[in-house]
């Protein structure tokens, strides 16, 4: 029983990270029909920078705040530099490769700066473990899925209640019509990328205390976050968040009962199967093209 509870709670924790990363993919895709393939590196920037600043003597809150902001700025820059110049092209090879290129560069700098070592990020969330249903967990791990759900609700609120949020939805539905209504489409897209990167960097700050921060910490969460976004239906925010949490739990069970390599095999196979049965993802809407 306690093993099952352990897997469920740990799964929800890592699933919350996937959910936050996938939420970022959802935000970018809605605005631009393009994403940052180096979104995993946004997570790494958040986690690593926070750990680095704390190591340099900064207070934890300030370090984390700045790390998240820098992550957001990274998203803003990458949209302007690597995505926008290729946005109009028929195939997506352009921005896929440019964002991958920037990811390689950022990761390389991080590797050089850390010399390949992992940095700890001490946080009160991992100071001591708590017992829930016989499972030993850090409070941090319990908080992550809650934060993912709060982020999802916050995004909904932003889209419903604020001008920029409504503009984001208008651009998502029809870019040209939005432009004709006086919406600065480029600004909305840039804002979306920045917002997506803020959530991505926040995910990095949240997971760093649990797994330690390193130059490669973003690779797998980035790829899996993308897989989760596609699986959940990249057009649906609740869809990707719920899928993220479920993916994390399934992953923990496979990892626990079989092995780490089997975890990736099952996870990614699951994604392909889901996509074959639901081409728009589990919760996504079909985008109809008129002949």
């Amino acid at each position: 029983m306690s093993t099952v509870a352990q897997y469920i709670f740990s799964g929800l924790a890592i699933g919350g990270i996937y959910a936050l990363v996938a939420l970022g993919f959802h935000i970018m895709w809605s605005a631009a029909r393009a994403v940052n393939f180096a979104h995993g590196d946004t997570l790494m920037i958040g986690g690593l920078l926070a750990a680095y600043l704390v190591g340099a003597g900064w207070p934890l809150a300030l370090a984390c705040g700045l790390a998240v902001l820098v992550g957001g700025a990274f998203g803003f820059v990458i949209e302007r530099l690597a995505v926008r110049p290729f946005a109009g092209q028929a195939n997506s090879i352009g921005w896929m490769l440019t964002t991958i290129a920037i990811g390689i560069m950022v990761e390389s700098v991080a590797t050089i700066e850390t010399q390949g070592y992992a940095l700890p990020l001490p946080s009160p969330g991992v100071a001591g473990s708590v017992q829930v249903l016989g499972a030993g967990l850090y409070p941090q791990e319990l908080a992550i899925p809650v934060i993912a759900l709060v982020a999802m609700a916050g995004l909904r609120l932003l889209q419903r209640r604020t001008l920029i949020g409504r503009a984001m939805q208008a651009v998502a539905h029809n870019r040209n019509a939005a432009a004709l209504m006086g919406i600065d489409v480029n600004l909305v897209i840039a804002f979306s990328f920045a917002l997506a990167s803020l959530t991505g960097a926040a995910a990095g700050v949240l997971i760093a205390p649990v797994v330690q921060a390193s130059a490669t910490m973003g690779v797998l969460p980035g790829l899996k976050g993308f897989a989760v976004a596609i699986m959940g239906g990249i057009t649906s925010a609740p869809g990707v968040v719920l899928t993220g949490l479920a993916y994390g739990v399934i992953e923990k069970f496979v990892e626990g009962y079989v092995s780490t390599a089997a975890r990736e095999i099952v996870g990614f196979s699951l994604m392909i199967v889901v996509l074959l049965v639901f081409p728009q993802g589990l919760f996504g809407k079909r985008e109809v093209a008129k002949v």
Partner: protein
Amino acid sequence: MTRLHTLGFLALATLLLAVPLTSGNEYELRLFMLFLIYAIIAVGLNVLVGLAGLVSLGQAGLFALGSYTGAIVATRLGFDMIGSALVAAVVAGLFGVLLAYPTVRVRGVYLAVVTIAFGLIVENVAIEWQSLTGGTTGLTSIPAPNVFGAVLSGYAYYGVLAASLFLLVLAAHNLKFSRYGRAMLAIAQSETAARALGLNPTAMRTLAFVVAAVTSGIAGTYYAFLNAYISPDIFTFTDSVRFLLMVILGGAASTFGPVIGAYILTYLPEYLQEFAVWQKFAYGALLLAVMFVLPRGIMGSLGALAARLRPAAKAATPTAGLPAEITLAPDERRPHAELVARALTVRFGGLTALAEASLRVKPGEIHALIGPNGAGKSTFVNTISGFYRPTSGAFELDGVQLTGLSSHEIARAGLARTFQNTELFGEMTVLENVMVGYQQRLAYGLAAALLHTPAMRREENRCRETAAGLLAFVGLADYRHEQARFLPFGLQRRLEIARALAAGPRLLLLDEPAAGLTTQEIDELEAMIRRIAGLGISVLLIEHHVELIMAVADTVTVLDYGQVIASDTPAVVQADPRVVEAYFGSSASHANLAEASA
């Protein structure tokens, strides 16, 4: 083959012969052999990326699959190199089919993610399945390259790799300039139009995936024999990116581009070594620079430059066209086609776009379908050309049931169409557009295409001449080497008609051909429709332009709110009070419609 391509193949052959003679030591030759293996992957991947327009970020997975399969059958079952490579090619090819299946439903970024996932799955299976793959330590003691028990020397193995690459480049080149290559390019540019011309997108995408998979599989076996050792960390996502970059850097869709790209990226690490720890950074920066400076790759940019320097040379290759009267001569046995639609109903959710609409296009007539906006005309057209499935009802061409067939099957049954919003293959030339239309009349198979056999060339010449004749028929003979997207709108419409005619249709469906045309262009269109009907082709004309309809149509059918409210000769329909009401409201008199049509 053009003179430039012949020169290119000569240069490649010279290079492949000269390198082993001049290489100073074994390390140099080995590195060059590694380049040959990567080039094989890149040339195969180019068919997928350059021709079919599909992105694969999981090619390392297929490479690994081929490598492991080859190594396992060689070490466990004692297969020689040829046997191992064949088994690897078959296994990789099967996975290629499997990977192509998702393209039926997803493309673009979704497909990219599927291929990434595939690569990661293969990598992790290689780690996990220790009894077969040796886990993280990998497979060692793979035998030296051998054929039928005889061990190959280093130079002999080099010969195998060099010959493989040369033949592959030649085959890929031949494939590009055949019906298969044209079909892949066309499908990538407008799937809708391609389907309407009878092309089967799923089959072509599967072929492209299989080509890319089989070449990667063979390359994988070659690699295993060259290295004598393989492990999962040689086949990572980074390698998939590098294979894709080879194609893009060299120039997607070009003949020699992938080879050049593979060469640069094989030797690049040697030069990047001086950057020491910054090596990966430099690689990323280079990738970024390529996308901005050479988005079309080295060969693509050179080609664009050459085209700008000698634009006249392109226009100076006149081909005698076969007159349309000959190539479109109707079949003696069944001279004219008859289309019958019975009680077609199409519903979208709660909306009934078409309600029990029946229509009969009599053999050889020009039949016009009119109706106010939203009457269901477009729905009707899209239904009988197979893009929408009718909720109920049936339709047939000359008694052959078409209901439920997909659009390319309907096209093959003899129904060709044009599009309201023109759907051209924008980056292909005007002549190539029409040649794609001729596609389903070409009979040669894949082997003939790869070998460019004399029979295949004869068929291709016939195709080219027919296309040229049809361009003359619609008055576009002077534009045949222009890219279709640069044509003015009026000419694009004519090109669509020529392309549809190239399919040798028995019924031509024109979807609002006069929209956006000038008065003079409409007069020319009217004459053209008459000449098409004069060739014995039945025409179904969907139009708003009343004057044009009254002038050319033999029968007019009027749709309103999804229902047929009248179907008769133009004069009778014009006088029908229900038609007048549909167009002008109940208080209008006959005189109004007569005025509008005058």
